[in-house]
């Protein structure tokens, strides 16, 4: 039996549950810190300060824009919303919450916690593409893209999935299980972020020298494996908090089901790391630290979708599949499809999230849950990806994403900030610019 069969009706939140969820949400930013470190470590040393400042700036921009615009459109579960009638059903497509977080102090405790969760979620979603645009994406353009995500795209997805939107109502309206399930933000955060990363890569293009005129793609390894691996450990703490808080808020899980959610999170990540370790050991003769980090993170992302609804054996299976697929997909994207993704966000966040969402349907005991998950995935692919690409394409016309060739040559730190992250280091000349 699944540990936490999602309940369509939110129970009244006890004070203990409120305090626990609030404490968890104070730990959840460690996931953001982990991803920020990973983004920075996987970039080059001459862009490290710009990368980390960008992470910080994006968190700030999303908080401000989400307060000004996004939170209104997300709305709240049971709150005001915009609907239309089609085929005898009510389709709830946009929230109509109060402007500028009005009345937040007097809102029900669960609504306040949901809003805090959404602040963290939108920041994380906007951080994901930043790592993929490393070493060539301008800081101002990155912040503007984050503002677009916080104002338009994230609110739509979050309302549909978390605030009684039409995807959440698939169970009530069409008898599809408990509706689309996304307890930890696999769809609203990671798939959205991963698709944004793909849009950024398509628009900005690869780093100079990545794909030479002749021969295979050039390896441009990250500059600091310690940042990357320590980021993975930090992310685990954040993810445990994130998934458990999400299970309380979005799956209405009872307290007794929360330890299983945490165990599933750990098992999915562990299975993914073990599988990636084995695959890279077999393929390259030695385990690859960067790909192992990608596998670990992809496992955490997959757990975001399904940790609250699986049993531990299933969670381990989901992790193993994630870990096998991750290094193969990273290689496929780079070598076969000419996609230069320094942080591996498309594989880790988009593919990992989609697989987790599918697994939540595959292992669900409720009839129709798999179809609900498939409809959600179809929505992410059919609406979110084209919408993000269109908005970013328009933004690129106004505020070009890509730094000029000179900036790329000297590094983003010197070009955009006027100083490097490691001023006492001598940065050697890059062979690819000869």
């Amino acid at each position, binding site marked *: 039996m699944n540990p936490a069969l999602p309940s369509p009706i939110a129970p009244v939140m006890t004070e203990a549950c409120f305090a626990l969820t609030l404490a968890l949400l104070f730990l959840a930013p460690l996931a953001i810190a982990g991803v920020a470190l990973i983004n920075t470590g996987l970039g080059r040393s001459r862009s490290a300060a710009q990368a980390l400042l960008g992470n910080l700036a994006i968190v700030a921009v999303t908080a401000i824009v989400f307060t000004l615009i996004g939170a209104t459109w997300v709305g709240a579960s049971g709150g005001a919303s915009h609907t239309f009638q089609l085929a005898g059903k009510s389709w709830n497509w946009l929230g109509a919450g109060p402007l500028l977080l009005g009345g937040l102090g007097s809102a029900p405790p669960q609504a306040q916690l949901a809003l805090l969760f959404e602040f963290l979620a939108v920041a994380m979603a906007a951080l994901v593409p930043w790592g993929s645009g490393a070493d060539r994406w301008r800081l101002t353009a990155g912040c503007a893209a984050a503002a677009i995500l916080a104002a338009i795209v994230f609110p739509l997805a979050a309302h549909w999935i978390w605030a009684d939107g039409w995807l959440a109502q698939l169970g009530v309206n069409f008898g599809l299980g408990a509706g689309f399930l996304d307890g930890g933000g696999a769809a609203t955060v990671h798939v959205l972020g991963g698709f944004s990363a793909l849009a950024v890569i*398509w628009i900005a293009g*690869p780093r100079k020298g990545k794909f030479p005129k002749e021969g295979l793609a050039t390896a441009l390894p990250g500059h600091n494996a310690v940042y990357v691996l320590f980021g993975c450990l930090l992310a685990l703490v954040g993810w445990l908090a994130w998934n458990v808080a999400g299970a309380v808020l979005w799956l209405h899980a009872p307290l007794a089901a929360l330890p299983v959610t945490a165990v599933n999170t750990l098992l999915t990540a562990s299975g993914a790391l073990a599988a990636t370790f084995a695959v890279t050991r077999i393929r390259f003769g030695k385990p690859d630290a960067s790909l192992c980090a990608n596998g670990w993170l992809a496992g955490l992302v997959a757990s975001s979708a399904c940790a609250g609804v699986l049993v531990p054996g299933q969670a381990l299976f989901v992790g193993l599949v994630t870990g096998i697929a991750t290094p193969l997909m990273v290689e496929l994207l780079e070598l076969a499809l*000419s996609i230069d993704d320094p942080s591996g966000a498309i594989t880790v966040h988009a593919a990992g999230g989609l697989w987790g969402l599918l697994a939540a349907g595959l292992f669900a005991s409720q009839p129709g849950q798999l179809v609900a998950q498939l*409809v959600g995935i*179809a*929505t992410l*692919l059919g609406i979110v990806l084209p919408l993000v690409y269109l908005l970013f394409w328009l933004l690129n016309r106004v505020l070009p994403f890509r730094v000029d060739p000179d900036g790329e040559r000297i590094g983003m730190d010197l070009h955009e900030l006027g100083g490097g992250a490691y001023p006492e280091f001598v940065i050697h000349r890059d062979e690819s610019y000869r």
Partner: protein
Amino acid sequence: MKYAGLFVLPAGFFLSIAALILFPSPAPRAAFVLCGLAVEALGVAVAVRGHMEARGGSRS
């Protein structure tokens, strides 16, 4: 070609939504939703193919 692929994606989405409305019974509904996803997969493949062609023309 990339844009053609991106235009195909919403078509797959609307196919999936049509499945919900048109087919009350589970089997045809699931089949139609899968068809929608297959159309989306085709759209992604076309978009990626378009990206590869564009990159082939501008390798640095």
